[in-house]
């Protein structure tokens, strides 16, 4: 694969072509000028406050992912998406809880471990319930469910749009851990500890500023310090082991310090949304979504009934010329179509049965043409 993560080289060019670069899928590091100020900061949210929300949202995604029995890879990708998303959109526009849902849902698809929308919703609802001591029940088809679902679908799209469909080949530091530990003659315990530091590092946006190799080295170094292991120098002439992996010592120390900082902060249980309404917890919003949904369904049903009626009339009428009947039906269909916005399903059903007929006919035709060719050969 020729998709090596890009470095922060060529900054001038980066400044000019920010959009273009951002949408290229192999870019996992953000250009420095984008890192300078986040959309939330532009909206007057302090960087510390934003970091808190990011950290909290990452925690939510991790927790829900574990509830859903998703592999760590999915949670890593979700957290990566989340940090990148908040370099494009402000916390004032998108609530961290909703963004966490969207990122995990999308990451499960990206990593080919898709979860049903409703499973994701119920997992996050559980997390919400536990963290807020709420007793609200979410029921399938209820107002709350409708509101959450709409928020999730909307935020998923916004993420896709903002990241320009560039979310694959995310290079996680985890990939390097086992490799490094093996080269350093470390044991499983060391690898396990480094892996945990790696997981925690995802809560900061370190992954958008430092190469995966740097984060991996920092995690190994922290793990070794914690377990009081001395790591061998790979080369005899006093070269540090990270230098052998092409990692700069200063960069490594900065990354390690940032990861360590995470543990000084107090755990975050619940943060109120910074986005103005509509909010997930707002019953009025949920009710409005449900009402809209029901109106759509009613419209759909009315259209179906109109179509059925037209068909029944056509069947009851004295046998008209087949062309006229078809035209009638077509007219009825277009009438109902204009009335209904959400007409996909009915049409699909019809085309499905048409497909079945078609394929049967095809098989017949094909076997006929086979016979013909065979006949000719003989």
């Amino acid at each position, binding site marked *: *694969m020729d*998709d090596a993560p890009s470095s922060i080289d060529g900054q001038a060019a980066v400044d000019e072509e920010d*959009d*273009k670069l951002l*949408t*290229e*899928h*192999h870019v996992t590091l953000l250009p420095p000028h984008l890192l300078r100020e986040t959309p939330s900061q532009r909206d007057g949210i302090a960087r510390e406050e934003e970091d808190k929300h990011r950290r909290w949202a990452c925690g939510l995604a991790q927790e829900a992912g574990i509830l859903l029995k998703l592999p760590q890879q999915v949670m890593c990708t979700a957290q990566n998406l989340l940090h990148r998303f908040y370099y494009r959109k402000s916390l004032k526009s998108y609530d961290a809880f909703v963004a966490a849902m969207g990122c995990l*849902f*999308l990451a499960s*698809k*990206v990593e*080919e471990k*898709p979860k*049903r*929308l*409703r499973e994701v919703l119920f997992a996050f609802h559980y997390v919400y319930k536990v963290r807020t001591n709420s007793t609200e029940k979410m029921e399938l088809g209820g107002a709350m469910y409708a509101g959450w*679902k709409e928020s*999730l*679908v909307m935020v*998923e*799209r916004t993420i*896709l*749009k903002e990241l*320009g*469909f*560039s979310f*694959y080949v995310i290079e996680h530091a985890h990939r390097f851990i086992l490799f490094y530990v093996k080269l350093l003659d470390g044991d499983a315990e060391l690898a396990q500890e480094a892996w945990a530091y790696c997981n925690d590092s995802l809560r900061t946006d370190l992954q958008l500023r430092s190469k995966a190799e740097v984060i991996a080295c920092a995690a190994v170094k922290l793990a070794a310090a914690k377990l009081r292991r001395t790591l061998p120098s790979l080369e005899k002439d006093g070269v540090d082991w990270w230098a052998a992996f092409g990692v700069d010592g200063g960069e490594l120390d900065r990354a390690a310090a940032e990861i360590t900082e995470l543990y000084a902060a107090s755990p975050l249980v619940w943060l109120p949304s910074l986005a103005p309404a509509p909010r997930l917890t707002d019953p009025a919003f949920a009710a409005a979504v449900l009402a809209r949904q029901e109106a759509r369904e009613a419209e759909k049903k009315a259209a179906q009934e109109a179509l059925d009626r037209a068909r029944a009339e056509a069947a009851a009428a004295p046998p008209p010329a087949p062309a006229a009947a078809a035209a009638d039906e077509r007219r009825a269909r277009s009438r109902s179509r204009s009335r209904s*916005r*959400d007409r*996909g*399903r009915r049409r*699909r059903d019809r*085309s*499905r049965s048409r*497909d079945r007929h*078609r394929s049967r006919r095809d*098989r017949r035709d*094909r*076997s006929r*043409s*086979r016979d013909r*060719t065979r006949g000719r050969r003989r």
Partner: protein
Amino acid sequence: MRPLKDRGRPWTLRDVGSTYDYEKTVGEGVYGEVFQATEKLTKDARALKRVKTDNATEREGFPITALREANVLKRLAHENVVTLHEVLTDGDGGVISSFEFCAHDLAGLIESPKMNLLIKRPARVRSLARQLFAGIDHAHAHGVLHRDIKAANLLVTKDGVLKIADWGLARTYESDSKLTNRVATLWYRAPELLLGATRCSDGYGPALDAWSCGCLVAELLRGAPILPGNTEIEQVDLIFALCGSPTTDTWPGGPNLPLWDTFCNVDEDDSSVKERTLRERFSAFDAEALDLVDAILQCDPSSRLSASDALQRPYCRDAPRPSELEPLDGESSLELEVRKRRREKKGSGEARKS
């Protein structure tokens, strides 16, 4: 890496209604619908594919097939791989992918009485075969499996350039995770899939695309599908009748497959053991073509010719370029339109009869 879009902010899920003018519907199927449309500003012809969202059960957000297709096609840039220009939405929450427009698809060309003659010419088949292997080889080199090679998924421009389309089933195959064997249309499904392979270690990999390509090239040469099975069991029988029943000698990895015992574990003297009849059955092919098809249609995926090796064979290596052949002008031969025309013709015929 291919520049994604030269104008405006790329890939930002624009609204389809405000960016394209609808021309006509050119395809429908279980996957969704395809429209021909014109980009409002550039006047470029595009094929818009509206992915069907699964309304019947529950909307699952953004369809994963569209994600895969976008992912795969952002990685691939090749003359014989269809270009995905952008992904759009419509007011109903539908997701639409905008592709370069091609006038024909191979299934339509085969079925169209007029174009059939052009398609059947040996030089044309040879050119199409080379392009097919070139496109698939590019995908394989980038770690992508197509998994649904068939005539309807191969588009052809009016200049005779083949474009592999419909990457909604495509997957990357870096990891040894479990993948589904229920891919590819039955007639083009490789034997390892039919015998239940789901992992790289079972032989699940690029070879399955090569098999489909081999079937398709033989079909073009012969003028009819070579392995038209109706059920999976019949499909296996047809394959063994053509390629010979595999044994542990001809397919050492075979016994590891879940369904090997069901299909292949028979006594040596059993009458159901079949000989390889491929060379006799395709004796009408010219020598170079037969050599290629023979090397590809091998039951054991590890001894099957790969797409990149196929390109080195004389049949592909010396194939004419599309520009050396006459253009495929005339009415568009997309499968749907050919069928529509035929249906109309047939309808009028039946009316006369009655």
